């Protein structure tokens, strides 16, 4: 492990015959971060994840998880990770508790603590009432949550979730987002891939953007939000109809990227920073503009993604 990166890849390349799915990918996922791995369908997200999970062999390059090389120490790598694939099945002929018991045993958990953990993860995933149900009888969303419960069972320091909310209803998605946020707060490293950016934007503190097998950008979310045209958008309604004059005045302020005004409506794009917010309000008050209403919008992950990618496929 180098520099606090718990997951690291170096020039990782994955090929399927003539197709290069992942092309010299080098990324670092800091320990304790919620890392959103975003990209369109076919960008190479799942291939990268499968290499990290030791399920796929990279044609070139190397990868480490928790300091263990995925090629040389696959068992150690797997013991560190709770994995939820994008498409998965469950053993329909097992009871829910048997299913969790199986994976507890495979992870070498003592039977008593496995039982305790199973009760805990069933509660966390809202499946307590289904403990004695057959897995085959669960709905799609419940199976999704059961898979998440299985991934959480051994209490791994790293979670790799590949499209965790696909096929789940809005309530289920909300619950999964809440769960990711909670696990992130507990200090787990979560590597979550998705192409549904709204969901990731709410939970991630780091992002990596992959397109056509290449990493377009990677780093803390603030780094992207603060850069370029993105940032916070302040929507201000003045009590007077001289918003154009106010916009012109604000364009000269350091923390303001851009300002446009028409009649009483004023849109101000500023740095993603509370001080910038305060500075703008102070400037407006000092210039004698009276503010009737103010609303703030953050630049979305979608904005960042659109800015970074070109719409290519691997």
């Amino acid at each position, binding site marked *: 492990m180098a520099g606090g990166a718990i997951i690291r890849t170096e020039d990782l390349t994955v090929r399927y015959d003539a197709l290069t799915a992942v092309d010299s990918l080098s990324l670092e996922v800091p320990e304790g971060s919620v890392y959103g791995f975003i990209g369109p369908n076919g960008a190479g997200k799942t291939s990268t994840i499968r290499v990290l999970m030791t399920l796929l062999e990279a044609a070139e390059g190397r990868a480490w998880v928790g300091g263990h090389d995925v090629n040389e120490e696959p068992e150690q790598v797997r013991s560190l990770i709770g994995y939820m694939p994008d498409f*998965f099945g469950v*053993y329909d002929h097992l009871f829910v508790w048997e299913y969790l018991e199986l994976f507890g045993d495979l992870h070498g958990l003592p039977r008593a603590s496995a039982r305790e953990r199973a009760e805990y993860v069933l509660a966390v995933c809202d499946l307590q009432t289904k403990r004695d149900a057959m897995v085959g009888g669960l709905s799609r969303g419940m199976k999704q949550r059961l898979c998440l419960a299985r991934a959480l069972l051994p209490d791994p320091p790293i979670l790799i979730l590949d499209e965790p909310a696909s096929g789940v209803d809005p309530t289920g998605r909300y619950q999964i987002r809440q769960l990711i946020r909670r696990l992130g707060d507990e200090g787990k490293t979560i590597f979550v891939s998705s192409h549904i950016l709204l969901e990731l934007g709410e939970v991630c503190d780091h992002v990596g953007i992959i397109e056509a097998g290449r990493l377009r950008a990677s780093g803390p979310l603030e780094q992207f939000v603060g850069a370029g045209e993105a940032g916070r958008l302040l929507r201000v309604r003045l009590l007077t109809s001289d918003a154009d004059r106010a916009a012109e005045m604000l364009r000269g302020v350091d923390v303001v990227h851009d300002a446009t005004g028409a009649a009483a409506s004023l849109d101000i794009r500023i740095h993603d920073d509370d001080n910038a917010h305060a500075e703008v309000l102070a400037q407006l008050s000092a210039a004698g503009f009276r503010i009737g209403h103010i609303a703030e919008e953050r630049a979305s992950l979608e904005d960042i993604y659109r800015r970074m990618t070109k719409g290519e496929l691997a």
Partner: protein
Amino acid sequence: MPAISLPLVRKELRQSLRARATLAVENLYVLALVVAATVSVYLANQSGVPLWQCGRDAFYAIAAMQSVLLGLVAAAFAGAMVSGEREQKTEDILLAAPVRVRQVVRSKLVAAGLIVLALLLLSLPISVIFLLLGGLTWPEVAMAYLITAVWLTLALSIGLLSSAMFQRTIAAVPFAIVVTATLDLISLGIAQSGWAPSAIAGLGGLALLQNAASPDFFSLKVPIGAVSLLLCLSLAICLTESALDRVRLAHRRRAASQRIWLMVWLCLLSLLTLGAAAAPDQEMASPPWDDLLGFLSCQAGLIVVFAVVFVSQVPRKADLKALTGGRVGPMDGIFGSGPLAGARYVVLLSVLILVGWTAIWWVNGPSLELPGWRAALGTACLVAGIWVAALLAQFAALCRRVRRGWARRVLAGVLVALFFIGPPALQAWFWRGQDVPPPSSVVLLLTNPFAGCIVSFDPVAPMHGSPFAERIESIIPLGACTLLFLLAFGLCLLFVLWRVRLGYLTPRCSGSAPAD
């Protein structure tokens, strides 16, 4: 780490036994057993034979039916094991757990085996009834069950390999059933034909049962039954290893595939051992191996095949790096990874050859007046020959000047062939037109492992009365000369190889690395 994972076995059993198909198969099977037992006793009784004979005939009829039916059931059960995981999309989740692929595959095999074993034991009460009729003994009954169990192991491994080969269960299961049934029928045909190396018949359950009726089945003089069972089990292990390789990631597959070939070699050795052991005592029209020299020739051919297999395993540079992670020991690469990996294979080979030789010597040694130490010396020459051949192949693999992978393989093949064929060819050249081989040709011949083996066995005949050879033999056995030469040559090669290897994985400032 244990060879199997008990939680996985438990999971497989739970899944299989809760499936409706299992229930149907179990009930149909018991029904078929009862019907077959009743009909066979009735028919035997109608023919007017004594009751004890009725019981004996009915027992073997049931055992044969059981062998066929359970063989197919075993193939079908195992045929759905790996492909089923793929179809259900549970394979990734399972392989992402901290459990080894070999544990997953073997656990599946064990679980399927337990289910089939339970079905096999269902017939035990019926067998006890036949036993009480007096025409059978306990050992005969036990032997029939043992034979069926061994055959079922092979059927399970066929199913497992089929399951690993095909993506869909609907293709894997019929394929496994067809192969199992064909093997059963072909081996029965071979057993019926009375062809000499009838150990091949041991590959089929029916043929094994037919052989079991013979009183000599497990006798020491003609150990056809023991070799048949060994062959059957060896093949089962080969197939299981192949199934494992189809689930493993590629770089692990290359390292593991050598084990499969080792097992294939064991199978062939078993066959030859049987042929040589059985030949002097069996009344056969044309025994294929009628003396020890014939056996040696066959084994020589096998060693060449084995060397070629080693050559085909010559690693690419990328594989070697993946295997060793850049930390290279002198025996890494072709033998797997780690400094002791190579030694492990050489020791295993030695044991295998020794087993074959010991069997031959035990059965035929007294009549051939072959002392044990000479047999051991011949064995040592063969083992040393294999070692040197493997080192030559590695040397070719690491040759910088030969850039293409296929060219390095050809080079390895040429080097190994030269090592085995070169000295006898030169010897023949020096010897031409002379009655007695000159000292130069004797020395040349002694650099060949096969020649060393032959002169260990019979020091005078191959040298055609050469006074030079006789003089050496009076000081030190000729075979020992070969052995010493091979050891010295091998050590030199090992040293060179170690030096080459150090340079091979060290990046160069100029020039380019060999392309793969």
